[in-house]
């Protein structure tokens, strides 16, 4: 039932909004189904390939004891968690990219623009260089530290953006985020400068992204955070549509601008932090996928967000598949694959779009 004005007459603008909602429903179903199919297809197909060939019959043969079933272990320990991690990280980074681009009203914004990646990297770096001494033995210290670093960066940027004007300034957000990025990067360089070469190598590798999680624990740990964040994205989608056009327009249409900005910033940061804690700061996913998705389904966030979730998952699963097979037995870090595929592709997209 569309909202009516005080005299019971449906205003023209509300009629348009209502018809748009009805028109979008059919497309929403198509986009969601397509998105889920794309992600599921990637998740089902990718574990079938790898640096070695395995027998699927052996892998799924429950009569074979687990401890001696190499095929099953390659499938369920090496490949499946890795593919699931890639899908989750890809979805989270792509959807966060969409949200950050809407929030900052800047097509160049990425999930890492506001300092999250460098905060996470600083956390990981601390454990890898000087933290070995207090690292517990039963849990993975690096993902925990990188998540803590991401949260620290987010809190600082948030506090700065919220402190001024008693509201929530996106320009302060952007400036604070970019500055914090550089500042943390400088701290990382300083730590690397004084660290021994082995840990420098380890952190360098961490920065290139790695999805070989070797267990389901990191995925299970990150999943609740990602579910919360993604639910927030989908709820915020209509408001992001207005916000990405102009703040005044959004305010005029009854959007609580500051609240929407805060929730989008925090949820996108949460998703990015969780993604980075799983796979490191994998670049390009958060900028290429959103732009590609907008070209296909248009700028409406109600469509672009679900589409970017599915597309981001499939894209990163595919990139990781390339990374783990193309120069086997060596690995090509997934961050290099996303950059090598993503960079030129994005440029091509720009030129084609301009024409």
């Amino acid at each position, binding site marked *: 039932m569309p909202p009516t004005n005080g005299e019971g007459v449906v205003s023209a603008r509300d009629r348009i909004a209502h018809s748009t909602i009805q028109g979008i429903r059919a497309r929403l179903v198509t986009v969601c189904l397509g998105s889920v199919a794309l992600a599921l297809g990637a998740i089902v197909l990718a574990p079938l390939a790898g640096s070695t060939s395995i027998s699927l019959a052996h892998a799924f043969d429950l009569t074979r004891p687990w401890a001696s079933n190499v095929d099953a272990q390659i499938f369920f320990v090496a490949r499946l968690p890795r593919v699931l991690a890639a899908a989750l990280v890809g979805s989270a980074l792509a959807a966060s990219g969409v949200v950050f681009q809407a929030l900052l009203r800047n097509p160049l914004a990425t999930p890492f623009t506001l300092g999250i990646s460098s905060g996470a990297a600083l956390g990981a770096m601390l454990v*890898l260089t000087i933290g070995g001494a207090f690292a517990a033995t039963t849990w993975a210290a690096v993902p925990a530290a990188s998540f803590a670093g991401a949260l620290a960066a987010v809190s600082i940027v948030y506090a700065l953006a919220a402190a001024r004007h008693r509201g929530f300034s996106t320009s302060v957000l952007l400036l604070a985020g970019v500055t914090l990025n550089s500042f943390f990067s400088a701290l990382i360089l300083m730590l690397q400068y004084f660290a021994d070469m082995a840990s420098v190598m380890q952190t360098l590798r961490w920065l290139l992204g790695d999805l070989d999680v070797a267990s389901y624990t990191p995925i299970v740990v990150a999943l609740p955070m990602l579910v919360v964040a993604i639910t927030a994205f989908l709820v915020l989608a209509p408001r992001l549509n207005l916000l990405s056009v102009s703040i005044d327009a959004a305010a005029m249409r009854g959007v609580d601008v500051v609240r929407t900005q805060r929730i989008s910033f925090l949820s996108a940061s949460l998703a990015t932090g969780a993604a980075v804690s799983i796979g490191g700061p994998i670049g390009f996913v958060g900028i290429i996928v959103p732009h590609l998705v907008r070209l296909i389904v248009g700028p409406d966030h109600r469509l672009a967000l679900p589409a970017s979730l599915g597309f981001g998952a499939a894209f990163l699963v595919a990139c990781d598949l390339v990374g783990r097979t193309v120069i086997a037995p060596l690995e090509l870090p997934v961050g290099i694959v996303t950059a090598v595929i993503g960079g030129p592709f994005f440029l091509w997209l720009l030129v084609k779009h301009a024409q």
Partner: protein
Amino acid sequence: MLNRRIGTRTILAALVIGLTLGLSLQAQTKPSRIISLVPGATEMLFAIGAGPRMVAVSSYDKEPPEVTSLPRVGALIDPDVERILSLKPDLIVVYGSQHDLAQQMGRAGIAHFSYVHGGLPDIFRTIRELSARTGDMEQGERVVKGIEATLADVAKRVAGRPRPKTMIVFGREPGALRNVYASGGYGFLHDVLAIAGGDDVFSDVKRESVQASTELILTRAPEVIVELRADDESAPDPAVWQTLASVPAVRNNRIVLLTGSDLVTAGPRIGQATLRLAKALHPEAF
């Protein structure tokens, strides 16, 4: 005109001859103030008896204990040129890739020795070349012979024994099976493993290090996993390997942690390090 040209040539020739003479003279004199930027080379210098003539070492040097009292002058990426010059060395050991530093030293009239990293034979070659430069050839030869004798003894003891497929891990994230780096089919660790009676699971990968993904470890199925740690700062966490239950080393509980810088330094302690590795692989042979 002609005279002038001859004159120029004579001067040039004289300069070249003079320079050559000067350089060869310099090479012949026994250096008395030595700096090393390469920890492995520092250990070699001490082993061949040039230790008392060392005036500075790199910021990474920890061995032998005598280096603790020596000044630090940076390392591979951050050599402190000013400090180096102020110490007035007459021989400096630099990394082969430090071209700029080598040139700067050349301009300052300081002889340099370029260290090139490689396999086990390169350790012997470097000890011999270094001792020739420092004038300690006899002692250098003795050091080489000593290491060779240890290695021969190790090889003899493990000869004829089954050679376990071994993965040597020299780096991974604490508390997780991530970013696992293992020795590949090239380099001194690979050579040392062969002498210590193990077969390298990555011998076909002709690189010094291999990032061993979970899938790769499961496929290569090492019978022994040797984890190397230069220091004992972080607690041992062998339990993380339990995830890979089908790997024979995990099943048979043959995961060995070797702590100490000897196995990760291409230096004169490599003989003793090989012995330690052999004892870990073949405890019954010793």
